[in-house]
Structure formats: structure tokens, C-alpha cells
């Protein structure tokens, strides 16, 4: 009995230790990404930027404060938001292949952005119309899904997933219509938007996204235990005291906020929402009080590293970050899947 208790607390502290390790790795990744780039800064200048700004060339100061730092932070926030939304949606649907895209938010956001490009409006409102259109598009899609699911109350998740598939297909064909009728210029802009990029990062976007991430964190954290209980099935979770409909609404709301905001600023970036939560589960176990923070940290690190590749590998040219997320995350994920573990089947 005591041996089992000891084993249990050792196992728990191991999982917590790994989470803290991830938490310690994130600043290192951020620091590295801030130091490396097409314009060489290096660790000494990085220190001087804070300690003795006068010793740093003006161009380096401008690059760091106006371009690189907001970009690194935006990548971290977008990665964190996508991964957090993914963790919530996978937990809700009890489906490891679930992706936030399932509730239509990504397709809706893409449609909003494409409409913007179609009419040549992407520069309006000082460039803020494009993210706004993407965000509103994502929300409208989720709203439509909610209306057809009686406010996400009836029918259970199986019906919701099916409705999501149908909605995605419909949005996809509307999207295809716009792509088909678009002018050549607009078409090219649309294509590159859908590949995803953090190149447009500016401080106001970082602040806005930080606020959305905070709301998402609150909504998901307060439902972390309910998400655990949902793994027994929705009916059993209800017997355990989970207000299933409320939890479902809050998680979909959070996912729509997170993915909508992330997509608005960085375009559609795949893979992270699907894989970062899995990585977190493989490293930390299945309890959402560990999975949610783990997914945030892993998602942030993944996208910061992918973006680092996007801006340095072909420098001075840019690569599409959407191409690199899978290249960087894929091997890591496969290695984790191979690793024998005490709990995975």
C-alpha cells in the first residue's frame, strides 16, 4: 500500500517535473529565436539591448524591437492558441484526430480573408480589416454550426462532428468559388495567406492576441476537470456532476476565440492544433490540468521554431511557416510515438 502510494506520487512528480522542464525550455527557445535571424544580433547584443542600448547600432535596435521581438512573441502566442484550442476540442470530442478546424472556424476565417482579398480590401482600416474579416468569418461559421445544433445542446458530439464536416464542405465550395473567380493578383494573395505567416507581426497584434489567449486559458482551465470526466463518455460525465452542455459551449467558444484570433493574424497554420496536444499527452499523461499547459508550451515552442526556420532558412527570402510546422514537429512527434511509455497502449 505504501509502496503504491510512493509510486503514485513519484509518477505525479515526474509528470510535473516534465511540465516545469517545458516551462523552462520556452524562455530558452524564445531567447534563441530572438538572437538568431537574417540580421545578426547575438547574445551579447541581446543583453546590451536591455542593459546598455546605446552600445547597440540603431539598425539592430530597430530590427529587434520593431520586427523580431513582436514576431517571435506573435509566433509563440499563435502556436499556444492553436495548441490550446486543439487540446480542448480533442478532449471534448474524445477523438485524437479532432482538430479545431472541425467546428468550421478555420474555414470560416479563410473565407472571411478570401472575401477581403477578392474585393481588394486587405489594406483597409490600416490593414486591420483583413484580420477582422477572418475573425468574423470564423465566428459566423461557428454560429451557424451552433444554430443547427440547437445551441450545441442537443444531439451529442457525434452529430456535431457530422454537422462540422458538412459545414466545412460547404464553406470549402464557397471558398473555391471565390478562388475560381478571383483576379490573378487576389488569387496569389489568397494562396499565400492560406499558407500562413508571422511576418506581419506588430505590437498591437501581440497585445490583442495575448488578451484572446488569456480568455481562452480561463475558459479551458475552469473546465479542465470536466474534460477529464468527459473521457468516460458524456452521459457518465453528467452523472459525475458535469454540466455537459455548458462545458461543450464554453470549449467551443474558447476554441473559436483562440483559432479565430490566431488565424486572423497569421493565416491558416495546420498541424500544431492537432499534434501539440498529443505531444503533451505523450509527455505528461492525459489529465487536462497537465495537458492544457503542456500544449500551450509545446505549441508556442513549435511555432517559434518553425517561424525561425521560415525567416532564416532561405534568408533574405521568407518561407511559408505552414510548410515548416510539419517538418519540425513531425519527426519529434514520431519519436515520441516510438518511445515506450508506462501508460500508452
Amino acid at each position, binding site marked *: 500500500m505504501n509502496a503504491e502510494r510512493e509510486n503514485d506520487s513519484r509518477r505525479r512528480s515526474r509528470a510535473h517535473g516534465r511540465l516545469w522542464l517545458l516551462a523552462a525550455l520556452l524562455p530558452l527557445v524564445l531567447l534563441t529565436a530572438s538572437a538568431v*535571424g*537574417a*540580421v*545578426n544580433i547575438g547574445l551579447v547584443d541581446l543583453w546590451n539591448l536591455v542593459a546598455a542600448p546605446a552600445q547597440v547600432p*540603431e*539598425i539592430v535596435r*530597430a*530590427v529587434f524591437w*520593431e*520586427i*523580431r521581438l513582436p*514576431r517571435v512573441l506573435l509566433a509563440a502566442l499563435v502556436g499556444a492558441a492553436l495548441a490550446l484550442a486543439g487540446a480542448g476540442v480533442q478532449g471534448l470530442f474524445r477523438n485524437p484526430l479532432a482538430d479545431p478546424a472541425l467546428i468550421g472556424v478555420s474555414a470560416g476565417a479563410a473565407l472571411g480573408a478570401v472575401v477581403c482579398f477578392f474585393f481588394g480590401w*486587405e*489594406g483597409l482600416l490600416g*490593414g486591420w480589416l483583413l484580420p477582422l474579416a477572418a475573425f468574423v468569418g470564423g465566428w459566423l461559421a461557428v454560429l451557424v454550426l451552433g444554430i443547427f445544433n440547437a445551441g450545441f445542446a442537443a444531439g451529442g458530439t457525434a452529430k456535431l462532428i457530422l454537422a462540422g464536416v458538412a459545414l466545412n464542405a460547404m464553406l470549402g465550395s464557397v471558398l473555391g468559388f471565390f478562388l*475560381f*473567380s*478571383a*483576379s*490573378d*493578383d487576389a*488569387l*496569389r*494573395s489568397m494562396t*499565400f495567406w492560406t499558407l500562413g*505567416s508571422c*511576418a*506581419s*507581426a*506588430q505590437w498591437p497584434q501581440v497585445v490583442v492576441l495575448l488578451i484572446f489567449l488569456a480568455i481562452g486559458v480561463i475558459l479551458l482551465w475552469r473546465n479542465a476537470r470536466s474534460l477529464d470526466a468527459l473521457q468516460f463518455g458524456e452521459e457518465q460525465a453528467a452523472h459525475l456532476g458535469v454540466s455537459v452542455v455548458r462545458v461543450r459551449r464554453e470549449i467551443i467558444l474558447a476554441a473559436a476565440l483562440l483559432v479565430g484570433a490566431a488565424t486572423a493574424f497569421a493565416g491558416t497554420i495546420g498541424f500544431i492544433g492537432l499534434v501539440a496536444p498529443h505531444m503533451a499527452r505523450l509527455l505528461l499523461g492525459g489529465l487536462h490540468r497537465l495537458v492544457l499547459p503542456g500544449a500551450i508550451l509545446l505549441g508556442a515552442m513549435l511555432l517559434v521554431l518553425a517561424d525561425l526556420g521560415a*525567416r532564416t532558412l*532561405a*534568408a*533574405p*527570402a*521568407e518561407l*511559408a511557416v505552414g510548410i515548416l510546422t510539419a517538418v519540425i514537429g513531425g519527426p519529434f512527434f514520431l519519436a515520441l510515438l516510438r518511445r515506450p511509455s508506462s501508460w500508452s497502449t
Partner: protein
Amino acid sequence: MLRPATILAVLLTALTARAEPARIVTAGAAVTEIVSGLGLAPQIVAVDTSSKHLEETRDKPDIGYVRMLGAEGILSQKPDLVLVSSEAGPPPVLEQIKSAGVNVVVISNGYSLDNIDDKIRAIAAATGRVEDGEKLITRVDADVQALRAATAANEGERPGVVFLLARHGGNLMAAGTETAAHAMVEASGGRNVCASFTGYQPLSAEIFATATPDFIIVSESVGGDDAQLLARVPGLGATPAGRELRVIRVDDAAFLGFGPRTPAAATQVATALRQP
């Protein structure tokens, strides 16, 4: 022919221009061609992918696709002037470059031959090469005059033309209205038979039921001989252009770029369109 807006732009750029730029980054084929035409090719330190076709810029660092630029990549080339055509982006990236204290000049792009002079004037002002600019404009204007003379003969009965563009994957698309190709076909004295749609559209045999081109214009980069080309497009063989194998090959960077080489390329097409 100077428009007030152009004069204003020229004045503003002239006022703000410092010493002649020593390190220039360009994006957009026409912009790069003009900068090169002003004798500033040695000062160009990096260009976008679409500008790599020139001999002078072939070996310069590549800042990538014109719509997907990165601020830091461009700044790492330590430019004192960034000259981009108006499709360059994303817009926040240009803002970021400006915020680093680098002069960014956006050269507006329009599907009109008159626009070429405006571009040259704006670039000449931005680079402090006004005299060279006027020389280039004189040359371009002469080419435009030659084009007008060449097309004058076609007035009245313009030959029907279909312009084929090769997209990635080798798919051929036909140019409708609101495209550079449409503007250039018309400017070369042809009549675009695909005026019923906008943009570039995939080809179907039905297009040629109503549109009967006398000529086919296609990029010289499209592989295969004329017969092979016709075989790839269903229905094209039955048109007058297909029966007679009347295919005109163009350097699309020159023909569609609305740069200094465009009027001459159009004159060649106009001459070809007069052949029976």
C-alpha cells in the same frame, strides 16, 4: 503628359531624397528593369524572385516572392532604399522596414502603357537620377510611337487573339479581362476573344465554340512545339488559329511587365498579328 498626382509624387520624393542611394533592394520585375535601365544595376543589392530574369540581377540575393516579403531579410541587406511595385507585401512588412528608418518607395502598377513613364519618373526621382530617367522615357516613348504605327494598320478589323498562360503544374489558362495580358493584347492591336470572363480561367473546349481566335499568344517558356501545344488544349485545333498553326511566342516578363521593354515586345506582337 504629367498627371498632377505624379508631379506631386515626384516633388515629394525629390524633396525627401537624400544623397544618391548606394544600396537598393528592388521587388517587381518592371521596377528592377527600370532601376537597371537608369544605370543603377551595380547599386542593387537584392531583388525579388520575379526580377531574377535580368542578366544584371541573376546573381543577386533573392528576397523571395514579391507578395511574401520579410522585413528582416530585406534589412539584412542593409539597404538605404527599398523600391517595390504596388503588389509587394504584406503591407505590415513594408511598415516594419520603414520603422527601421529605411526609405521605402512604392511604385504604382497599372495595366497601361502610359503608366511606364510614371514609373520611370517616380523611380528616377527616388534615386536622384532624373536626367537618366528622362532619357529612358524618351526611349520608351519612341517605342510606344513605333507600336502605335505598327497597330494603326490593324484598326478596323482586329484579329482575334487568345492568350495562354502556363500555371504551375503545366495547366494552361486563358486570359480574360482585367489581366495584364488582356491590356497588352489590345495594345498590340489584337482583340481578346476571351472577354466574356475576368482573370485567368482554365480552358475548356466550350470556350472555343464562341471565341474563334486567329492567333494564339503564349509564353516562350511553355515547352513543346506548336503542334504539341495545340494538342494540350481541347477545341483549339478547330479554330482558325489552330488550323493555320498561328502561334506567337513572347517573353512574358517583357510583354506583360509594363516595364521599359514592354512597348518593343508589343511592337513585335503587333507585327506578327499583321501576317496573314
